[in-house]
């Protein structure tokens, strides 16, 4: 396959299959979770229904509690660099905004290419650091499974191929761009089936936990 056919393949049938898998997977997981039977709580609520606590927990769990701060704060910061850089690269780059507009009709002004490249570079660096941490920390290594490493690879590949396409590294531009879009397609397809689903489930899981705790009167 030459560069042109890889690009056409990635923009054509593979993208549609990835989109179908993304939507199917999200619908399957959300409906599967929300249609589950909830255990009946016979206890008297101590602080209303707990919805306020649920919303508070979505925010409060985004930063380590004071007790753990000294031990984990720096890794949280590295993680934030990765996430913010990733979000800037995805949501700020005009070709990406064009894709979002094509899918949803939504659009917003983009950022200069240099800013995007800087954000993507930082994000890639942070991802490498996080992988190093995962591999060197005995506890994290024990907790990690295939999903962690595979999800890491799927998050890292679009960043690297995107930077290569931007800077014209790696020879044939069409091939590099095609591989970048292909990497994005695979990320799309895998998202609902692995741990990357946290981009959608994060709010639900934290909110549900916060609501349950709040109902019982626990401080959030």
């Amino acid at each position, binding site marked *: 396959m*030459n*560069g*042109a056919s890889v*690009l*056409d393949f990635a*923009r*054509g*049938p593979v*993208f*549609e299959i990835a*989109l*179908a*898998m*993304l*939507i*199917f*997977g*999200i*619908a*399957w*997981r*959300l*409906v*599967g*979770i*929300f*249609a*589950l*039977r909830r255990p009946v709580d016979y206890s008297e609520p101590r602080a209303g229904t707990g919805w306020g606590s649920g919303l508070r927990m979505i925010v409060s769990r985004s930063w380590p509690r004071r007790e753990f701060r000294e031990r984990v704060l720096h890794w949280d910061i590295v993680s934030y660099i990765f996430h913010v850089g990733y979000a800037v690269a995805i949501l700020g780059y*005009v*070709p*990406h905004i*064009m*894709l979002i507009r*094509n899918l949803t009709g939504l659009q917003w*002004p*983009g*950022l*200069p*290419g*240099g800013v995007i490249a800087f954000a993507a570079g930082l994000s890639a660096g942070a991802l490498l650091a996080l992988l190093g941490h995962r591999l060197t920390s005995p506890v994290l290594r024990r907790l990690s499974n295939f999903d962690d490493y595979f999800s890491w690879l799927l998050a890292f590949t679009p960043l690297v191929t995107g930077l290569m396409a931007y800077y014209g590294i790696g020879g044939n*531009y*069409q091939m590099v*761009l095609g591989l970048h*879009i292909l990497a994005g397609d695979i990320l799309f397809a895998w998202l609902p089936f692995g741990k990357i689903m946290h981009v959608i489930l994060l709010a639900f899981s934290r909110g549900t936990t916060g609501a349950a705790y709040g109902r019982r009167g626990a401080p959030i």
Partner: protein
Amino acid sequence: MTDETIRDVLTRRGLSRRAFLQVCASVTAALALSPAEAADMTKRLETAERPTVIYLSYQECTGCLESLTRSFSPGIASLIFNDISLAYNDTLQAAAGQAAETAKDTAMKNAWGKYVLVVDGSVPLAQNGAYCAVAGRSAVSDLKRAAGGAAAVVAVGTCAAFGGLPYAAPNPTGAVPVSEIVRDRPVINISGCPPIAEVITGVILYYTTFGVPALDHLHRPMNFYGNTIHDRCYRRPFYDRGMFAKTFDDEGARQGWCLFELGCKGPITHNACPTTKWNGGTSYPIESGHPCLGCSEPGFWDKGGFYKALSTPTGHWSRTGVVSGAVAAGVAAGLSTAAVARARQGRAQKKAASADSEPKNPTS
């Protein structure tokens, strides 16, 4: 080849050496040759024999020849009267019918194994090639016969180089590019819809003096197809700064911002438009406010739409079908999974309830 050298012809026609050097300078500049190569080219052009050129047209629109006739340096008249011996071209020649075919056969016989075969248009293979015939012969048999005696084949235009419009889906005529028919001769692809006139003449003159030029993986001369439109585009700084025209008449379009959002295929298109330009260096499509269509790349008709940004999907399937199908399947799968889980929960609860209701063993 004719016996006369190019220099002999120019002298006979009363062209001064200065005029000859001007032609050489403009061609070497267009080819981006080094000063040493430019001097070498001048020397070789002086002594080179005029090559016999046979120009065949198949499934095409004559746009490529229209483009060639607008070559400024060298002009088409200078090219066909001075630099080459054009033995056959069904549009430019005065002869027609049997006389033209006889002239072609004679030229081929006289220069067998030495002539340059220029082809524009794709070659249909469906229905035994019946979709395009010249003088009672199908295009494919005509091309095979002519290519048999050619020193090299120059495929002019995207139709000849990559199939072009006739090759676009669903390709009803079974069109193929020249390179699929001619496999035992060097094929130089000069793609574009149409190609730039100076690129066609420049490549022919280069072949006359140096032979086959360095080619890329699609057999296009690197001198003209080595860079993308995006690499040399004067609007590139706006791309880097994230400044894009959103429509053809907005402020961005008036300010000359990047046309990526309007579907510009410049980043993936290799051609010399931004440097050589058109109509004697007047401008090129992007300079006129229109995005690059990517006409010098294979399959440019089937890349999802001229006005679709490169980063957007080509729309391979119906978007509504994909989304609604995936949602329906996902909801069904989710409900089924939840039903299984609920049934399991129910059984576990019943089991727990029956365990609670059983009388406790007083001894335990």
